[in-house]
């Protein structure tokens, strides 16, 4: 059976599943419950500057009957006394020495504050530090959180302060509220950060109440931009993760992936694109710590099926398959095929192709069931029909190469081959 044992800069955990810095990791009570449930590690909710929270704090986006496709929060960093947090961290480390204990930090914006905070945290026996350069609300107005992460030079400066005193591994957590996560990632690594984690939450407005006209979440008749997370942000996180995994500077350090991870499949995808560990929050906010069972079990079973014995067998494996558009093979061509035995005649492929793609599906009227067939000569192989088909494997994409050789855009242009020919 595959081993999920993870080593992140020497920080060991029995599995790659850490809880992200967030409400589930803000006190001993939760963290001990998480460890008892089997979580590999936690990133303790951010300690640092003194704050005051508002009520309410969360809002969500539901989709087609499913709750919390995306979650938005305007909660700040820990609002508990620092000493209480530190003593609880120490106790958790003592009770579960085999689990990773990372502490998230966001000190006031001066060297001394960072130094004092780091020393206090290291005294707890924690295994690593995560620098919160990502929180997009509340702290940014005071020059902290995303205000640091959005400016590579400020980030570099703060990491340098940190590295002057830190004796345990330092992970810098990146904000996605930038054009590219790479500049701040590079600056952090160049300043000495031994690892990166991403993404933090994305600034958002989840919606507007159509009765009160007030956006969510409603705080006494007003709202504010919050941080968006949950399954909805996963594709964005995967893209940003890939850019870090592909950059010559940032790819030198291990990454802890974050962003909408709800299942072992999500985790495997993050790991294939370069994450050594993954951090989970929204899925636990919705379902509790018990989801760890299937995260571990599913990942382990998949690894067995694929012949992987340890996570490093596949971490980063898919990074090199993400290339730039101009390197894609223009001779590769696929066409859709509908399996008539599986077709339930819902017409969804037809109307999608007819109204939104290339009119490549023909309709033979029937009562009450129409027949749908692919016009192969019209099909551009866009996948849309297959994506909207509600039946698994009813529509498959069949390879029909245009030419035998690999032919990319540059070569295509060089040869003067015809454009706009469809």
């Amino acid at each position, binding site marked *: 059976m595959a081993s999920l044992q993870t080593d992140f800069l020497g920080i060991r955990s029995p599995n790659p599943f850490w809880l992200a810095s967030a409400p589930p990791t803000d006190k001993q009570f939760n963290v001990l419950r998480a460890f008892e449930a089997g979580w590999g590690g936690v990133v303790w909710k951010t300690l640092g500057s003194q704050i005051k929270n508002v009520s309410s704090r969360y809002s969500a986006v539901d989709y*087609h*009957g499913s709750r919390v496709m995306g979650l938005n929060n305007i909660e700040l960093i820990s609002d508990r006394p620092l000493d209480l947090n530190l003593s609880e961290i120490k106790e958790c480390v003592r009770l579960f020495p085999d689990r990773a204990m990372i502490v998230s930090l966001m000190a006031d914006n001066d060297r001394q504050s960072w130094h004092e905070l780091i020393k206090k945290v290291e005294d707890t026996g924690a295994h690593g530090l995560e620098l919160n350069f990502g929180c997009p609300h509340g702290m940014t107005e005071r020059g902290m959180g995303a205000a640091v992460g959005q400016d590579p030079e400020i980030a570099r400066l703060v990491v340098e302060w940190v590295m002057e005193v830190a004796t345990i591994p330092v992970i810098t957590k990146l904000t996605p509220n930038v054009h590219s996560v790479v500049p701040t990632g590079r600056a952090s690594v160049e300043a000495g950060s031994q690892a990166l984690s991403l993404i933090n939450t994305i600034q958002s407005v989840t919606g507007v109440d159509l009765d009160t006209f007030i956006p969510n979440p409603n705080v006494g008749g007003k709202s504010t931009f919050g941080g968006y997370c949950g399954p909805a942000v996963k594709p964005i996180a995967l893209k940003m993760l890939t850019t870090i995994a592909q950059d010559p500077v940032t790819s030198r350090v291990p990454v802890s992936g974050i962003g909408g991870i709800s299942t072992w499949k999500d985790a495997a995808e993050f790991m294939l694109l370069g994450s050594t560990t993954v951090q989970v929050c929204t899925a636990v906010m919705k379902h509790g710590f018990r989801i760890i069972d299937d995260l571990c079990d599913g990942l382990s079973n998949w690894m067995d099926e694929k012949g992987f014995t340890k996570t490093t067998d596949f971490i980063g494996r898919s990074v090199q398959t993400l290339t730039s558009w101009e390197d894609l093979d223009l001779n590769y061509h696929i066409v859709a095929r509908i399996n008539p035995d599986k077709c*339930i005649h*819902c*017409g*969804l492929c*037809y109307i999608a192709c007819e109204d939104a793609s290339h009119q490549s599906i023909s309709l033979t009227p029937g*009562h*009450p*069931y129409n027949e749908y067939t692919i016009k192969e000569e019209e099909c551009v192989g866009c996948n849309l029909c297959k994506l909207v088909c509600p039946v698994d494997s009813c529509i498959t994409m069949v390879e029909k190469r245009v030419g035998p050789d690999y032919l990319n855009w540059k070569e295509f242009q060089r040869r003067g081959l015809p454009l706009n020919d469809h």
Partner: protein
Amino acid sequence: MIRDNRLSDAEYAQNFSDIHPPFETRDAALVDANRCLYCYDAPCTKSCPTGIDVPRFIKQIVTDNVKGSAHTIFQSNIMGGGCARVCPVEKLCEGACVYNLMEETPIPIARLQRYATEKAIREKWPLFQRSKPTGKKVAIVGAGPSGLSAAHVLARAGVDVTIYEKEQKGGGLMTYGVAAYKITPEFCAEELDYILSIGGIAIRYEQQLGRNLQLSHLRQQYDAVYLAFGVGLARRLDIPGEDLEGVVDAIRFIWSIRAEGYPATPVGDRVAVIGMGMTAIDAATQARRLGAKEVTLVYRRTQAEMPCTETELDIAKLDGCNIIWLAAPKSVLGAGGRVTQLLCSVMEPGPPDASGRRRPVDTGRTITLDVDMVIKAAGQMPYETLVADETIAHDKGRVSIDSNGATNIPGVFAGGDNVNGGKEVVDAVQAGKDAAAAILSYINN
């Protein structure tokens, strides 16, 4: 013994409670509404005689546009509320749902339709505007589904409509001829009020063609006439003993339950119901629910040929009705003028008949059922004498119409059960729509 008042009020209420209860909450409706795939050129819509855009109205429930959803339903079927309760959806929309092809439970279309329409009817949403009155007048004979459907289309178009109805209430068989656990007379009254709320429709009750109403007068007073008086005469069995006390017809039996109430409707201890159509099922199940100790459905063919749906048969089975296939009533036996037994010939399936179904052939053997009541539900007959007396062209009593719904008499149109011999409510509604379109074209030219 045949007697009324067999049960307590609480027992009646329990026995006749809604067989398909509505969704209790929006959440519950959304669970099912969200399953709908929103098919294109949807098989459910194509299987609805009125062509309700089912994916559209379900989508509108999902988006919390229930008003739009009700409008979508009513614009195709103004009796969409009643049809949501009485339609044999297992052979129409739900039977065609593509989930069936995945071996999955189909979308509960009727229940969702009820969700949207019930709100509209209860809260009296004015979803349709009547056009400016045109000064045209149309008479409709019969306030059943077909007549009301035609009336609504005509009223919307600004026509003044007068409906002549032989009963004391409108709704036709919806009000008088369906099992009460499917649809209550109270709902039928609400639905009727809702249809009439558009304005421009007057109903004159207890007006029966051939009795106190003459077609010639209607033709003189109105620009057009629509005949939608349905069918109504129970088919006679033409067997000895048919006139004994205790032999009743199912239409009359169900009419009594609905018009006079549960306690006032007498029922026997041991009841035989003859036939296996929807009406036979409605009679048998309601006889049980009124307190009959034993109810037996007797049918001369096999299950393969039965006119009712499997779902209907299941209701009868679950109500504890006995079923005897391949038994044809031969005579009703009695004592002192009252029914005591039903003698049946035992049949076997023979070669196919004109309908394509295997014709039952008498084996010569008989069986005898000890019963004190016989309910005849062997089909309904058109009003042949009435039609002939009014010189309306017909085929064995069924009014003959051309492709525009017109009869042989100028300005007189017909549709629904009196043309087709008796189909579903939803078919009658569509016939009313078609007729109204033809009438509008006729009176505006």
